[in-house]
């Protein structure tokens, strides 16, 4: 079943262009100059029910604008979208019963009141049957461990506590599709981890489709199976997260801590690796998996050094994205089977990175 589908979705808006200085301001008062900016251009996307999709891109790429069109908040300039069978901006209220939306940077909770009051309000607004609502609320309170904060005014909650309440609130009406706009922004590692677990669990247990935007590589790696990268308002890449990590940037980062009596790092030249940093006894290597295998590198390292500690990591997704940009604009980087899944439309926007 298709959860959402967009066809050539575009959104542009006009901004007043102002010259610097007072004279510029005065001139724009009498003869305003308008500039057309493209926030989203030609987005074609299909998401199936139950999928977990990450929508990635740098600031101003059009991620939030797209989510806001898909939830019916914004009207597109042109193009079409269908979310759970509705045209979002035309059937906004009808669609609202069936989707949940969380904006990491905006709160839906009433600031001076305890979260419980907002939950009750939501139960009325979504016309939930009171017995169902109470059972659902109890379940979510347990799963999200909200009991200690339920009766504390929201303004006195920490960001992490608040965010858990926000997400629980958006699950009260059992949405089929959940939009998360930067859900873990500003949270510490442990809280992020917990929130990802909760969303993943809801996706698994209730089959909720998840569509999220994030800057955080962890959100994508741990929560999503598919990644859509947008840039300048258009889709740059649409691929499985696994495939993205494997094919686009087939590198791993090895961090070593050497024992004090180990040979110095300078002598370390292992084929297919590159030293990224070298500070005292800590060394970071980047391994190109198209030239060598991780086990070869590790055994070479063990042969050359006396190791105190070693970690092997996937590169952060930010780097992957940067890499794709590099490939598109400079033509550098490995060509891969993903070429075919890239779509036209990038570069049409008025914004720059």
């Amino acid at each position, binding site marked *: 079943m298709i959860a959402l589908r967009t066809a050539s979705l575009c*959104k542009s*808006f006009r901004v007043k262009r102002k010259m610097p200085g007072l004279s510029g301001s005065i001139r724009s008062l009498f003869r305003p100059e308008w500039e057309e900016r493209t*926030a989203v251009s030609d987005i074609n996307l299909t998401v199936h029910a139950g999928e977990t999709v990450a929508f990635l891109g740098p*600031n*101003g790429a059009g*991620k*939030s*604008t797209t989510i*806001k069109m898909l*939830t*019916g*908040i*914004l*009207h597109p300039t042109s193009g079409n979208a269908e979310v759970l069978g509705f045209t979002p*901006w035309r059937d*906004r*209220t*009808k669609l*609202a*019963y069936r*989707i949940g*939306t969380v*904006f990491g*940077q*905006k*709160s*839906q909770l*009433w*600031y*001076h*009141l305890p979260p419980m*009051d*907002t939950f*009750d*309000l939501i139960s*009325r*607004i*979504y*016309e939930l049957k009171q017995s169902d609502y109470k059972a659902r609320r109890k379940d979510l309170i347990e799963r999200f461990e909200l009991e200690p904060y339920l009766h504390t*005014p929201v303004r006195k909650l920490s960001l992490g506590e608040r965010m858990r309440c926000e997400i629980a609130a958006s699950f009260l009406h059992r949405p089929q599709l959940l939009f998360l*706009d*930067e859900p873990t922004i500003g949270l510490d590692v442990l809280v992020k981890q917990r929130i990802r677990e909760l969303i993943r669990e809801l996706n698994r247990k209730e089959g909720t489709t998840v569509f999220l935007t994030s800057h955080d590589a962890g959100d994508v790696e741990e929560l999503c199976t598919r990644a859509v990268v947008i840039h300048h308002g258009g889709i740059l890449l649409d691929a499985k997260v696994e495939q993205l990590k494997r094919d686009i940037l087939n590198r791993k980062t090895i961090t070593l801590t050497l024992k004090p009596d180990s040979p110095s790092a300078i002598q370390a030249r292992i084929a297919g690796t590159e030293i990224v940093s070298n500070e005292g006894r800590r060394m970071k290597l980047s391994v190109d998996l198209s030239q060598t295998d991780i086990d070869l590198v590790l055994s070479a390292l063990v042969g050359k050094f006396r190791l105190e500690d070693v970690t092997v990591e996937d590169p952060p997704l930010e780097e992957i994205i940067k890499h794709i940009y590099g490939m598109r604009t400079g033509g550098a980087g490995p060509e891969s089977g993903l070429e075919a899944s890239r779509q036209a439309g990038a570069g049409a926007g008025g914004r720059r990175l």
Partner: protein
Amino acid sequence: MNGRLSFLSAKGRKIEAIYRITLRQQLAYKVDFMLRASFLLLILYVFIQLWSAAYEGDTERLIAGFSLKQIIWYLVFTEALTMASPQLSLRIEEEVKNGDIAIRLIRPLSYLSYHYSSYMAEAVFRFGIHLVVGSFIAWLFVGPPTFGFGWLGLLSLSAGALTIAFLLNGIVAMCAFWIEETRGLEFVLQKLKFTVGGMLLPIDLMPEWLQRICAWLPFQAVLYIPARTAVAYEEVSMLQYFAVQAAWIVVLGIGIWTIYRRGVTRLHVNGG
């Protein structure tokens, strides 16, 4: 028919829920209420002195059919109604500017219904408080409000009055979809209510030609109509007043709805 009824009752329950939560949130602003209440006392004190001078202390005298006592109580009612209005345009302008409007629009509820019910919750609550505070000082200086049915008239016409105030403020607020600052427009609206709305003095005291203009404007339905009914119940036609209010509610309601429909399609939410 049944479906229609259940639709209406579901909508009614939503509006009631928002009304209740706004009221609860309001209770967090105690200091704000105290400040407003003391300011009201000050204003009324000044006006009592002013009108006492105009009437030269003569409690029997009538000016344009109003006794001193009626004028003072009239002021209490118009002040209570004026100060009841929350700053709707400021709020909507902020929502449009900083993108918080997104939080309102993710709900299965119309944006205008949300604001109407939250506006009314605040306005009715504040109206009550200001009525009590204003009554205290007026009672002290000009005697008890022995208006009989006038009270019933005041309370029943105030619902329409506050609704029209919402619609007027809302129409100004909707301009936030097009222009960056609505404060100027709001200022003009407020001053119109003060003058041709009959807040500072009953419209009957104005020159004939101005009275004729005021009769065709919506501002009198917000302040003059309920306050005059309160102090001079015998002289007014309640039916006519209700009709005037209803007509303005329809006209302004269509107006705000049309402006909103056009405005929301142009919305570009700032901040990512």
